[in-house]
């Protein structure tokens, strides 16, 4: 787990710095890490808040991003018996990283899943608090050009996800669509439309593939 903890620390700190730069208070920044506990969705929410998006856009984008967790739950439930309080706790701790280590090392062991998730939860929230406290000393981000931290952070998150031509095509399509739709729609709506369009096209079977859609 140690490499994962080390990997989570900068993510949590950078999330907190971007959240504070977007205008979130210390409590709101920390509350998102405590209650949401989903790095990608937290980063996206911060970007949307900075762009002035409304509550419905924030909630629907969060749902769209975290829908993949449905798959994680299905896979975990198929291999590991979770009931009652354990299932309720595991549901809050089921992140990308916890799912990954559970599938690799902890199949059939509910305590492993909860322990791994809990340790990541503690590290993520400690890193968030440290980043949020550090960010208090920063001046107005837009006045000194620090607003660029948002797109650069999303870009740094995007690069490792672009693993093949399909994901590269989806990234380019979504970026161009968001840029074009941003002229006529409010930022959150443009993001949702671009995401649905690009992922929807990108998920289609490749030409010549025999896989059923």
């Amino acid at each position, binding site marked *: 787990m140690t490499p994962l903890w080390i990997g989570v620390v900068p993510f949590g700190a950078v999330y907190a710095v971007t959240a504070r730069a977007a205008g979130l208070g210390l409590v709101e920044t920390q509350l998102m890490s405590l209650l949401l506990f989903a790095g990608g969705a937290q980063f996206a929410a911060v970007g949307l808040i900075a762009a002035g998006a409304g509550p419905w856009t924030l909630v629907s984008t969060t749902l769209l991003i975290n829908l993949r967790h449905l798959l994680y739950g299905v896979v975990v439930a198929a291999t590991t018996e979770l009931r009652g309080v354990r299932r309720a706790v595991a549901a809050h701790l089921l992140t990308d990283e916890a799912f990954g280590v559970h599938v690799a090392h902890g199949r059939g062991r509910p305590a492993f899943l909860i322990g791994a998730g809990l340790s990541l939860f503690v590290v993520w929230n400690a890193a968030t608090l440290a980043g949020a406290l550090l960010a208090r000393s920063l001046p107005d981000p837009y006045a000194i050009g620090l607003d660029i931290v948002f797109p650069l952070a999303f870009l740094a998150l995007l690069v490792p996800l672009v693993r093949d031509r399909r994901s590269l095509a989806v990234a380019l399509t979504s970026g161009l669509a968001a840029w074009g739709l*941003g002229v006529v729609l409010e930022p959150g709506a443009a993001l949702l439309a671009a995401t649905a369009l690009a992922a929807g096209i990108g998920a289609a079977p490749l030409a010549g593939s025999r896989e059923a*859609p």
Partner: protein
Amino acid sequence: MTPLTWTILAMAGVTYGVRLWGLLLPGTRLGGYGRRFLDLVPVAVFAALVAGGLPGTGAVDGAWRIAAATVTVTVVARTRGLAPGLLAGLAFYLAVRALGWA
């Protein structure tokens, strides 16, 4: 509570609901299209957020911001680290601004 606090609670609610829903559905199989769509959503979201936030206040500023983005992509691709890539791109852009070029 502020409106943003309520929004955060709603975001947490849908996230928890999705995770719990999956744990309550053992044996469910998602088709190839649905699985690929969900896998590609983070890629599409982050790309859209980059496109929405990267353009600057003019052609010159925009060009330097794209250059800073190129620095971030290069460093992340080499190091696989979020923080080094972000800091390198940010340092590049702030240096350009300090020199009065952007």
